[in-house]
């Protein structure tokens, strides 16, 4: 606190808003902050509510009875939910690595001022920002030409690269990596590949962290690729996000054991209501716990991105 006060300049202190205004503004933001996080807390409570309580009170912030049934059931069915978790983690990790490689190489190439095809490639990656072939042709190309249906590649490749990421990386390389380093490495006989991997990448960790985070959150949250390219005959390729969608249609994704198969959930032991919410928590908890620490990388990415190309 003491430190903060000293950091604050004289103008800033003099120019602060009045105390009553500050109270009103603070109240507004406390309210908005609560509205932002309360749905998550609510879903968490529902996931811990017993079936009886849901039947009696519906979803409630104050259930009449708490229960871990949903989570123990998920644990019981860990073969199916575990597979989905594995798919989500695998796609996130591999996708982030592949995506970083593809975005960073192009970003580096575009950042070289003397490169002969610089202009060509700049336009080449810029055009897709303005125009695209639309869902139908992408879908047909991916399924009929590239044969991606029902493969991990369908979950990884279509969202691996973005012109926006390439431009952020290019801008970072342009502004923070001195040409002299690269020139001197060239004089020492290093190839561009070597310069890129052993000189440029190690000193570019901030931008790689930023884009890596964009990518990994993107992959973790992606459900659209699975919805388009993974058919119900390949449930072992469902990521968690898509399990949440398909579970609407069939609880049987989880209840492989016959006793739970009865369509009316009221009579059976299946804690279906709370269980859905438990899967939501499984998806959200890693994000909710990690993003506050990664926030600054996101913000720096957004700020670099605002520099126009």
């Amino acid at each position, binding site marked *: 606190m003491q430190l903060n006060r000293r950091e604050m300049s004289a103008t800033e202190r003099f120019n602060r808003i009045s105390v009553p205004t500050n109270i009103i503004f603070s109240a507004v933001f406390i309210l908005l902050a609560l509205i932002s996080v309360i749905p998550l807390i*609510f879903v968490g409570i529902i996931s811990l509510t017993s079936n009886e309580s849901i039947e009696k009170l519906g979803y409630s912030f104050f259930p009449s009875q708490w229960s871990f049934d949903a989570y123990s059931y998920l644990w019981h069915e860990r073969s199916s939910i575990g597979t989905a978790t594995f798919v989500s983690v695998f796609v996130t990790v591999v996708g982030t690595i592949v995506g970083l490689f593809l975005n960073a190489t192009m970003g580096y190439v575009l950042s070289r001022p003397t490169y002969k095809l610089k202009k060509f490639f700049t336009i080449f990656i810029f055009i897709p920002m303005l125009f695209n*072939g639309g869902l139908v042709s992408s879908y047909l190309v991916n399924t009929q030409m590239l044969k991606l249906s029902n493969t991990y590649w369908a979950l990884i*490749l279509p969202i691996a690269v973005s012109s926006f990421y390439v431009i952020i990386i290019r801008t970072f390389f342009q502004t923070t990596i001195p040409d002299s380093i690269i020139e001197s490495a060239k004089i020492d006989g290093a190839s561009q590949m070597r310069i890129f991997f052993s000189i440029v990448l190690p000193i570019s960790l901030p931008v790689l962290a930023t884009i890596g985070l964009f990518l990994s959150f993107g992959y973790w949250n992606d459900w659209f690729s699975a919805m388009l390219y993974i058919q119900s005959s390949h449930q072992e390729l469902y990521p968690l996000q898509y399990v949440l969608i398909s579970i609407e249609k069939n609880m049987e994704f989880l209840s492989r054991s016959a006793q739970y198969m009865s369509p009316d959930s009221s009579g059976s032991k299946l804690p279906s209501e709370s269980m859905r919410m438990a899967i939501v928590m499984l998806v959200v908890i890693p994000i909710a716990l990690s993003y506050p620490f990664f926030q600054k990388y996101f913000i720096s990415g957004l700020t670099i991105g605002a520099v126009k190309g």
Partner: protein
Amino acid sequence: MRVKRRFNKDDFELTFLAVPTAIWFLAFCYVPMFGIIIAFKHYRPIPGNGFIGSLLKSKFAGIDNFKFLFMTPDAWIMFRNTILYNVVFILLGTFVTVALALMISQLRSKMMRKWTQTSMFLPHFLSWVVVSYFVFAFLSSENGLISNMLEHSGGDSIQWYMTPKYWPYILVIVYLWKSIGYGMVVYLASIAGIDESLYEAAIIDGATKWQQVKYITLPMLQPIILILFILSVGRIFSSDFGLFYQVPRNSGPLVDVTQTIDVYVYKALTGLNNIGFASAAGVLQSVLGLIFILAANWIVKRMNSENSLF
């Protein structure tokens, strides 16, 4: 201008590095662009021909796909929905976000700024599927919190997922809920970058807080507001598929107010299996989007060339 020179070793190596990504762009962006001719064909996969073979051999349809698409009531509804929602999102979103960014930057307590901003950033990191469950927890007619509260207070319970008239409001609220925190970050970064001496000079001249906002902060924010505005105008024919498909849980009775171009294209492609209509709608969306972003950029450039996007 650079002197014309031959392709040297350096250029070769750089090209080599660029090749994987270039192939990605070819496969996932440029080939599909070529695929827009699907809209002018009676496309059907011809066995043994692959995608491009089938595309070339399919019968030419002229503008039939477009003509028949616009004979269905769907076409009018989806274009109306997409544009109207986007107009509301752009206007309301920009206003609310800028206003809140200005307000939060004035909070006296740094802790308060940090904590509320971090909390408001959370929704941005959630997928629409997760958000659809959040909404469901409140609106489900069986167990939802709001339905329960209405019942307990003696009112009639509302079948939210069956009643179209509420959804324009619900969708706008959900959109704002998810996007405000993110938008604030962008504007806050710009506010932080404003030279403090401008405010010092203003204070010496006796400017009030409001005058400082009006004559310094807002004009300094204008470039970023304009750039984001151009971008969103360019996307006026696109919609967030998850918001309009997942959040209303693809509920049939709501189609009139939730069907946007993207939702229609998805449903026509996968459900109705009507590739012709789907691609016709998609091509219109892409082409109109291109025209709009070029036009928006041109207009901004004429006003002030500094602020244009390209």
